[in-house]
């Protein structure tokens, strides 16, 4: 089965589709609330971009944690579906960015969400494995938002400029981009390795 077919299959699954609908409904709601009725400043993007970043971080961490102990093929498909979330919400971002005319560059707004969703998916995977090891995976529904809130709090409190998806949705931070890229790479390398191991085990079994 090709990667595209795997992603398509994962994306049409009930949990993904329902969360995608909820995700887009939330973005729609933000646009409805923040889009100016007549003349005046248009600041829709400054509400939409942090909302989108926070939701992507939550979805990435949540799916990463929930599927940490699933087969590598399934996790890859989920990661692909999460990237589909980013692309599917890009028109909301592009439209509000265009109308709001922010100082943050377009490449930041267009590129960083891809890194963030993969980075938080990696963090979620680590969290899920740790929870499985400690046999507290029952509490993942609480642990995921708690870890996210803790990371943002630590980021703001300690001035790390590394994890906060809200602030850096509208402000350029090279440190944030570097941390997100590093985490995304770690996640990608980890999956490649586990994929290769699974392939080797399959061929040995044959």
């Amino acid at each position, binding site marked *: 089965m*090709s990667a*595209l*077919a795997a*992603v*398509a*299959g994962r*994306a*049409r699954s009930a949990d993904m*589709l329902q969360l*995608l*609908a909820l995700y*887009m*409904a939330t*973005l*729609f709601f933000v*646009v*409805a609330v923040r*889009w*100016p*009725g*007549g*003349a*005046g*400043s*248009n*600041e829709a993007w400054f509400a939409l971009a942090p909302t989108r970043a926070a939701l992507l971080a939550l979805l990435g961490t949540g799916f990463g944690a929930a599927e940490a102990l699933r087969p590598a093929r399934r996790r890859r498909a989920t990661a692909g579906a999460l990237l*589909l979330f980013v*692309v*599917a919400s*890009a*028109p*909301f*971002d*592009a*439209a509000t*960015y*265009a*109308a*709001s*005319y*922010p*100082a943050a560059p377009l490449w930041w707004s267009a590129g960083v969400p891809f890194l963030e969703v993969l980075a938080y998916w990696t963090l979620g995977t680590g969290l899920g494995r740790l929870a499985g090891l400690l046999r507290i995976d029952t509490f993942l529904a609480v642990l995921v938002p708690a870890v996210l809130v803790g990371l943002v709090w630590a980021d703001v409190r300690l001035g790390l400029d590394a994890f906060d998806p809200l602030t850096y949705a509208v402000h350029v931070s090279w440190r944030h981009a570097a941390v997100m890229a590093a985490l995304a790479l770690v996640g990608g390398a980890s999956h490649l390795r586990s994929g290769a191991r699974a392939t080797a085990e399959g061929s040995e079994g044959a």
Partner: protein
Amino acid sequence: MLLAALLAVAGLLTQAASAQGREASVTIGLGGNLVAGTWNPLQVTVRDAPAATLSVRIDEGDLVSGPRVVRYQAAVPGGSGVTVFSDDVYVPPFRTLAWTLAGTDGVLASGSLGARDADGRPLQVVVSANPGAWRAAFGADARVVDVAASQLPGRAAAYDGVATLLIDGTAAAPRAESVAAAAAGGVNVVLAGALPSSQAGLGALAGAGVRRLGAGQVRRVEASDDAVASALAVWRPAERARLVSALAAAPLVRAPRSAPQPLVLSVAAAYALSTLLALRFGGRPGVVAALALAVVVSVAGWRFLRPPAAELSAQRTLMLGGGELALALSVEERLTLPAGDVSVSEPARPLSELPYRTDANGTHVALARWHGVSLALRPSLAEAALRFEGGRLRNAGSAVLRNVYVIGVGEQGTLAPGASRVVRPGEEAAGPADVARLRALLPAGSALAEGPETLWVALPPVLSDAGGRP
């Protein structure tokens, strides 16, 4: 007593530094007499010193709103011998004002002023060998200062804080262009008594006895306290600050309108539904279709919703003319959509309470997103296009002047370049609100006309013994 006070203020304003034969002094205000809330002349004199940078820091904040800092920076050339650098800087009412003249190898001069030095009273400048003799002609509260003729600059903006320039011919003569600049800048220039033959050029500025020149006038009077007091009493200065405010009262630029909310929400809903349906029922082609749809909607949304420019600007100029000269009072409005610095290439001051900085590249104001600022540019002189000449109204410029109107007389139609006409009673019309605001601040008999981005005003000839109203 007065002289001692003047010397004390001058001592505060001027600091001389002498090290290894170098000398440097910084003077703010006409002869060191600063007027808060106006443009002031600034002069730096250095002797045998390298090139330096003058930095002025003005805190115009208060205890409630905190510090609000205005910065001015200029490069002062150096070299052997004496180098004089002159400019005009707007000094708002301040809490503190500090300056530093720093070269590559250290500070050449520095100084500071406190809030009590921020005197906003206009200057009554006397150029005389015996300035005390004229003190009684000015009121008790008047700020009479004695200034040497050589200290009078030839720039109209330098006289923003000056009300009167009295010259009695007993001291060294000021340059005629300095006196003309003062008059055109809005100063009541009074030539008292018979001027010596060496100062005949100044007398010529007054014409037959009194003559309007730009926003001010030059008047000859007898050398007596009563005559001078009378000349001061009849003078009604052009209210330059209020004219600038009136010029900026109506917004010159407007923020772009966003697309209608119902349209945006309809498209967003249709897009979201299409994407969900494509993913649910489309399989692999559905994923490809969803990706393609996202790209198409993003590009279309960008093209449809993006405002044409990040920064919008418009300028309006009021040319306050009398005779052949006009004082240009310009307001430039800038509106920025992204947060950042807006800049104009000339020295200017914001009309709202905002920190800003001025340097060789112009004036820069940091603004929040979707915010605008009105900037009053430094006043300057130009040739008057609209003039009263021999009882006729004349267009001496190269552009057509429309909606010519004489306050108290009525509409006069259009004036082609080079054309002139006798002022006749016309229809009294209120005119647009922004023009009506300006009319209320101008004396009766003033003529107004609209040119490209410019509103021309010809102030009426001053009443003299021979008359001369239009």
